[in-house]
């Protein structure tokens, strides 16, 4: 694992799918689960769950580890947190821009 910046758009794309959001919710509630356990709670096949977990994994939203013959998955919050921070920074940038538009518009109104 390298110390890279968050792949924000990977996170957005991963979260764009409702099954993957549901998987994250289930994992968050359970702490840890296998693909088989998750598939039993969703209207999709185990193979589909494995594919969705791979997308979540590559977006850095879940991690997995082997326990005997099983692969167990768990939520990692770091990427989600980083993405939330990124969005916050971008929203603050918009606030600055809106403030500048406000100042320019109000200044030029006063000059009239």
């Amino acid at each position, binding site marked *: 694992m390298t110390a890279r910046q968050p792949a924000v758009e990977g996170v957005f794309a991963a979260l764009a799918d409702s099954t993957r959001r549901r998987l994250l919710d289930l994992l968050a509630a359970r702490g840890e689960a296998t693909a088989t356990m998750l598939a039993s709670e969703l209207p999709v096949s185990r193979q589909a769950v494995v594919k969705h977990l791979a997308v979540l994994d590559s977006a850095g939203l879940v991690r997995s580890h082997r326990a005997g013959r099983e692969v167990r998955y768990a939520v990692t919050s770091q990427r989600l947190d980083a993405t939330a921070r990124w969005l916050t920074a971008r929203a603050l940038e*918009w606030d600055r821009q809106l403030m500048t538009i406000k100042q*320019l518009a109000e200044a030029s109104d006063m000059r009239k």
Partner: protein
Amino acid sequence: MVSDRIEREIVIAATQDRVWAEVIEFAFGVGEAELAKHGVRKGSVFVADYRIHGKFPLRIEKIEPKHHLSYRWASAFPGIEPQANNSTLIELTLATEGHETRLRVVESGFASLDSSEETRRKAFEDNTAGWASEFEALRKRAELEGSVR
């Protein structure tokens, strides 16, 4: 959960006409009169010159003078026209409230960006720097006008 959009707004003590003029300057880098010469309308592409950051083709999604402007731009790729997978949508909406004007901005479409994370990070940094310098230029021009009058 993380949302795929940013929504911000501000109330401005100026007429909707004045705010619209500043919104045009902000988005296109030219004034209303200059923009009118280009016949910008829905579907057309206007190349905005953001000075040292490059020229950015903006695809107009909707333009309703004094009320609404929305466009797509590929902020990470100077000179490249916006496509679904390289751009975000920016929607600016104005509404008069008494003697003031409410300006709302929505930026959306982060989920469809399929660039590498380096490109994404660069896009953010470029956007931030580009907007900052754009506004700095606007501010200087406004102050200059103020002192001349």
